Structure formats: structure tokens, C-alpha cells
């Protein structure tokens, strides 16, 4: 086999950290499940912050060395075994998701906290276990170097995410969860069929090996199409978004935050792996324009429907549908016109930054919406009057999240859209620039509707139905501030997104 001597895939120093990032959530899930009661929360309280610590070590490692961390599981090199690999994209996404999940955990203490000595209750028991499972599944999505391992990861992700939707047990959330499950399972099965076809053609599912062997042939095209459609369904890209609004709007606030900010990025990340790493040359100009077109349709449709919403949580959910669209604009923009290959260029950095800044901003906004709901007892936008005076910190967090979604400086959304616009100008694809600018305008529109209602004075002073704990507001604000200041990474670690990418490996270190 000619590849055998090209591939020096071996466990690197600190590679064991990658195993830890997958194994510790799994161990947390199993332990919490068996110990039950209040232990689930306690185990999460220990493991989630250590997960953040772990993600930062991996981040710094990859950033400093500019190269990948690799771990060969079971000492069997691919194609027989499985490799875990952390490149710049994985490290940055792991870090982001660890931050968001920790903030969500703090926020969730109010709703899912368990008092010492109390009997085991359903919702907290399930919530903490599912949160740890989502964290582990996301790490696996980011680190998995094998398409079947990624399948297992999205299965974990699905089975952790769906029960979160109907945690409060109302009939309509059950229906939303069921619809989500059907879409997600359809996505899984299509992805799995695609993997089987790829294995049949190339006898490996390892991403690096596959990227060297893959070539244009009917079976490969069918496999790529099936996998992509499956992943689109899980990512809720227009027109496969039907499940998202009821599911994300109906879930408890902490769950909505994690579903909208974290979970949809998992399947999106696999789309990126598939097209940028496994088969960068196969998408072609037509495919790239199609991806971009679906993204543009998502932006327009999601934004227009968001503008018409009466309820705040639904508005935020439709905003997610629109923001997911931005993620797919990077495909036509990253396509090199000469080689017709997807390049790890500024457009990829922009797209990933969009994913990162949306994760932080959207989690903050869903948390804010949860606090507003708790204070008012409803989330009807028309009746938000006076809420800014009652909970100013929360409304401020909501507004800052909006600033990032609109793309005002110095937010992460600004830097992301800047990079994407730059790529649009450089490649002469002005139509994507128009879509982005129009999307920003729409976003400003629905943010304005909400904020103008929220700051409007109400007839009588608003009496909060519950006292909102300070730490809940602080968690939302912290995430919103992260999103706002994310644009400053331009002066620092933004180049990590290019670290250890396949192309730069072939060319050698920059």
C-alpha cells in the first residue's frame, strides 16, 4: 500500500488528553446513572469545569505547536483501528462548547438543582446526565478521525438531545421531541448508509486515508449526497428545519440554550469534515453554489418568519434557523476557482467563527428569554413592557447577544461576517455579500422589535413573579460578553483555526 509510508500517524505527546476528553463524560454518565439522586448534579459539577480545563490545555497545545494532537486508540493504526485527532478546528470548537456548557450548567442550577437529602427527581436526574452526554458526544464529533466513530458520536448526540426537548412533559413538547427524533433518525440512517458505501469502495473510513484514496465515481457521489442530506436534516438547514422551532422553543430554557448553541453545531462540524477534509475536490462550483443557496434561503426564510413571531422563544428559535444559513455561505466562498477545491482559507475561518459566536450569543439569548419567562410568566413580545427596568442585566445580555448576531464590531459575528465578505469580494461573488447584508438588516429588525418593547415603560411597575438568582443573570451576561469580545481574537488566536489542517500538513509548517 503506497500510503503506508506517507502516513506517520502516531500518538503524539499529550495525545492521551483526547481520550480523557471522551472518556470522562462517558464515565460521568455511567456513574451518575448508577448512583442517581443528587450525585448526578455533583458529578457534573466536578466534571464539567474539569472539561473546560482539559479543553483549554488542548487548545493551548494545538495553538502553540500549530500542529495536531493525535491518539491511536488500542494501538491499532488506521485503517484497522481508530485515530483521534485534534486540529485547530477541533480545539477551537471544543473550547467554545466547553465554555457554553459550563455557563449553561451554572444557569441550570436554579431549575435543575437538587437539595441535599431530597429524593431523586426525574427532571434533574435526566438533565445532568444528558448534559454530560452532550458534552462527551461533541468532543467525540470534534476529535473523531473516522467516519463511523463520528456516526457513533451523532447517535450519542441525538439520544442525549431529544429527551431534553420534552423534559417538562407537556403534550406539545412531546410532539416536538418526537418530530425531532424522526428527523434526527432519518439523518442518522442516511449518514450510516453513506458510510457503508464509502467503506465498500475504499476499505477505510479513516478521514486522512480516505482523503487520499477518494475519487469521483457513482458510489462515492451517492454516498456523499446521502450523508450530506442526513447531516443537513440534523443541522436543520432549510428546508429540513421543520423540527427545530417547536423543539428549541418548547424546551426548558437551559435545554434550549444547549440545543441551539451546541447540538446543531455537531452535525454541521461533520459536514465541514466531510467536504473540507475527506473530499475537498468533489463539491465543485455547482455543489458549492447549492450549499450557499440553501444557506441564503435559510437566512431569508428564518429571518422573515422570526419577524412575525408573537413569542420570544419562537423568535429566537427562528433566528437560529437563519443563523445556521450563514454557516453554509462559507462553502461557495472557500472554493478555489482554479483548483475547484475547498480551501482552508479565510472563508473557513469566517464560517467557523460564525459557528462559535452564534453558539455563545444564542445560548445567552435563550437564557435571557428563560429569565424573562420566569419573571413575567409568559414570553409574549407585545407584553414585554417594563421588563428592562425589572431585570436590566438580562435585557442587556440579550441585547449584546443580538449585537453579535447582527455583526456589529467588536463582536465575533462582526469578524466572522467580515471574513466572509472579504472572501466574497476576493472571489467576485457579490451575491453572497448582498445576502449577508440583508440578513444583518433582518436581524437588526427583530432585535429592535424585542428591545423596543422591553425598554418601553409599563403602566404599573412590574412585579417579578419569582426572584431571579443573580448567578443566572451573570451566566447569560458572561456568555453575551464572550460573544461581544470574540472579535478581539483577530489580534490573537484566530490563526488556530488553520492549525494542523490537512493542506498545511502537506505543504509543511508555515
Amino acid at each position, binding site marked *: 500500500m503506497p500510503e503506508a509510508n506517507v502516513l506517520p500517524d502516531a500518538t503524539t505527546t499529550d495525545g492521551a488528553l483526547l481520550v480523557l476528553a471522551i472518556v470522562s463524560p462517558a464515565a460521568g454518565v455511567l456513574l451518575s446513572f448508577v448512583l442517581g439522586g443528587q450525585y448526578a448534579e455533583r458529578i457534573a459539577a466536578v466534571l464539567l469545569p474539569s472539561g473546560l480545563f482539559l479543553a483549554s490545555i488542548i487548545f493551548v497545545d494545538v495553538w502553540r505547536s500549530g500542529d495536531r494532537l493525535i491518539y491511536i486508540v488500542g494501538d491499532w493504526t488506521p485503517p484497522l483501528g481508530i485515530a483521534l485527532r485534534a486540529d485547530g478546528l477541533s480545539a477551537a470548537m471544543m473550547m467554545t462548547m466547553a465554555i457554553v456548557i459550563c455557563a449553561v450548567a451554572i444557569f441550570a442550577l436554579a431549575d435543575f438543582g437538587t437539595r441535599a437529602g431530597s429524593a431523586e*427527581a426525574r427532571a434533574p436526574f435526566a438533565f445532568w446526565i444528558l448534559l454530560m452526554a452532550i458534552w462527551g458526544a461533541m468532543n467525540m464529533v470534534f476529535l473523531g478521525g473516522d467516519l463511523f466513530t463520528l456516526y457513533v458520536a451523532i447517535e450519542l448526540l441525538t439520544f442525549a438531545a431529544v429527551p431534553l426537548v420534552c423534559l417538562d412533559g407537556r403534550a406539545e413538547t412531546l410532539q416536538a421531541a418526537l418530530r425531532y427524533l424522526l428527523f434526527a433518525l432519518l439523518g442518522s440512517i442516511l449518514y450510516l448508509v453513506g458510510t457503508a458505501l464509502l467503506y465498500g469502495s475504499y476499505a477505510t473510513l479513516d478521514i486522512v486515508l480516505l482523503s487520499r484514496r477518494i475519487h469521483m465515481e457513482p458510489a462515492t457521489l451517492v454516498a456523499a449526497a446521502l450523508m450530506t442530506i442526513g447531516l443537513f436534516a440534523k443541522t436543520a438547514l432549510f428546508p429540513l428545519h421543520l423540527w427545530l422551532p417547536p423543539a428549541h422553543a418548547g424546551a426548558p430554557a437551559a435545554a434550549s440554550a444547549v440545543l441551539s448553541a451546541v447540538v446543531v453545531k455537531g452535525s454541521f462540524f461533520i459536514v465541514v469534515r466531510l467536504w473540507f477534509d475527506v473530499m475537498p475536490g468533489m463539491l465543485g462550483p455547482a455543489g458549492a453554489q447549492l450549499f450557499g443557496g440553501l444557506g441564503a434561503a435559510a437566512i431569508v426564510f428564518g429571518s422573515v418568519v422570526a419577524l412575525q413571531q408573537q413569542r420570544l422563544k419562537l423568535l429566537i428559535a427562528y433566528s437560529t434557523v437563519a443563523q445556521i444559513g450563514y454557516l453554509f455561505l462559507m462553502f461557495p466562498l472557500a472554493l478555489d476557482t482554479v483548483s475547484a477545491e475547498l480551501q482552508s482559507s479565510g472563508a473557513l475561518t469566517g464560517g467557523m467563527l460564525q459557528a462559535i459566536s452564534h453558539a455563545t450569543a444564542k445560548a445567552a439569548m435563550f437564557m435571557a428569554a428563560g429569565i424573562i419567562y420566569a419573571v413575567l410568566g409568559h414570553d409574549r413580545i407585545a407584553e414585554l413592557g417594563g421588563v428592562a427596568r425589572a431585570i436590566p442585566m438580562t435585557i442587556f445580555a440579550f441585547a449584546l447577544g443580538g449585537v453579535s448576531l447582527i455583526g456589529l464590531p467588536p463582536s465575533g459575528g462582526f469578524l466572522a461576517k467580515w471574513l466572509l465578505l472579504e472572501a466574497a469580494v476576493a472571489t467576485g461573488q457579490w451575491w453572497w455579500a448582498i445576502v449577508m447584508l440583508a440578513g444583518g438588516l433582518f436581524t437588526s429588525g427583530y432585535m429592535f422589535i424585542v428591545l423596543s418593547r422591553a425598554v418601553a415603560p409599563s403602566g404599573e411597575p412590574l412585579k417579578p413573579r419569582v426572584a431571579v438568582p443573580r448567578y443566572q443573570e451573570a451566566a447569560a451576561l458572561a456568555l453575551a460578553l464572550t460573544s461581544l469580545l470574540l472579535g478581539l481574537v483577530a489580534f490573537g488566536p484566530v490563526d488556530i483555526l488553520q492549525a494542523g489542517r490537512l493542506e498545511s500538513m502537506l505543504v509543511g509548517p508555515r
Partner: protein
Amino acid sequence: MTIFAVFDIGLVVLILGIAVSTIAARDAFAAVIGFVVYGLLLSIAWVRLAAVDVALTEAAIGGGMTGMLMLGAVARLRFAGGNDISISLPVRFATAVLCALVAAGLAIAVLSPPDAIPTLAPMVMENLAQSGLGNPVAGVLFVYRALDTLLEKVVLILALLGVWSLAPDSVWGGIPGLRVYARRSSTLTFLAQLLPPVGIVVAIYMCWVGAKEPGGAFQGGTVLAAMWLLVMIAGLKRVPSIGQPWLRPLLVVGPVIFLAIGLAGMVLANAFLAYPPGYAKPLIVAVEVALTLSIGVALGLLAAGPLEQAQQQ
């Protein structure tokens, strides 16, 4: 040779016929029965393709367990009076188009195979000797790709948690709402007394033989689950409440031992999920035994369904 060809063609026709009748069935119960028969026929097809491991799994999971779950769902729907949910024409049309597209895509892929079909099988067999296993499928599941197998077991736990989380708060810690048909001296009672000893022996055999021949933890666990369900449905044993102290340890014992052995590999062998030389087979058999138990209990409880009554006493 010709007799096999005739058999194969007959089998294909039968499978297609059952598939069509399953889709055409307007009654949920009839459709589920069609689906179970379809699964059993498919497993015969897998045997004809010399994939005995796949055949066993298809029969146990595809036909047996899934069929059981769907029959439970049909029974619940009848009980809730929601059996006549009509699906609108556009949805049916969209489903048909989607299925036709997938089928066409698969047909393209299968009908135009590469000139030489590459395979990892020789490499799998070559390296199998050092683990002491004889069954290449077990080799892939527990040696080369043990990480995937380990995490799939965590998925099973999450699925069960998902089912449990559907319960109303008041019955948390209570008893799954399995339909029990307790009648003295009925055929069901007789079978529930007769079959389990045999079934348990078969399950142990499947688990044990999995290292050498087709079989293994998932198939053995499914048989165990079926026996347990039979005993519970016949009312010979009560459905346990999920608060029972023995229940959850049994559910996680498989993945926990697997994980512990994997972590020990980081110290005692070269890597996570690597086995120390010479100990691979005993360790894998230990993992399989624990997994058989865990899978059996998990599948049994999945079929038993969401919690319905608070714990008594």
C-alpha cells in the same frame, strides 16, 4: 447449485412481497407482523450471503426486539384510542419520493461496483491471531474498533433514560407499564416456565462462543431480554421498579468494566483499549459476559416501556 439459485430467487421474491405488503398494510398490527416476518426472511438472506453474525443480529434485533417494541406501541395506541391517525396525501407522496430517490441512489452504487472491491478482511484475519480470538467480527468489535463498541453501549443507556424521562414526575422511581397477561394455567404461563431455562443456556452459549464463532454479547443479551420479558408478561415475576438497588448496577456493569479495562490498557498495555499481550481473550470474554447482562436488562426495560405506576409498599 441450481437448487440454491431457485431458493435464492424464491427468497428474494418473498422478501419483496412481504416488504410491499408491510407498506400497503393499513392496519398497524398487520404492518408490524409483516415487518417481523420481513426481518426473519432478511436474516435468512444474510445466512445465504455467509454473514452469520449479521443474520443473528438481524433476527434478534431487527425482527425480534424491534418487532416487540412496535407491538408494544400498537397495543398502547389501541389502548389510547389513537389507532386511526390518517396521513395526508402530500406527506405520503413526499415519503414515496424520498424512498425512491434513496433506492435509486443505492441501485446506482451497487450496480456499478469498482473493478476490484477493496477490503480490510485479510488484514483483520492476519492480526487476529495475537488477540487469541477466532471470530473476526468479535475482533473488529472488541479489538480494532473497541471505542465505537464501548460508546454504543452508552447510547443504549441514554435511550433507556430517554424512555424513562417520559414519565410523569409523580411516578418517578416506579414501575414500567408493561402489559401483563397473568392467567393461571394458560399456554403463556406454560411457555414462560418451559422456555427460560433453555433460553438462558442459549444466551450463555452465544456469549461464550462469540469469541470463536458467530454470536456475542448483543445476540446473547437479546435472548436474555426475551426470556425475562416472557416471564414478566406471563406474570410469573413482577416488573421491577427502576428504584430497585440491583437494577442500575446491572445496567452499567458492562460498559463500566469495558471502560475500566480500556483505561487499564493505558498503564498495562500501550494504549487506551489495548490489551496486555496474552490476556486479550480472557479480558474480552469478561467484557462480553458483563455486556450480555447489561444489554439483556437494558433491552428488557426498553421493551417494558415508560413508567406508569408509582412504587408500591
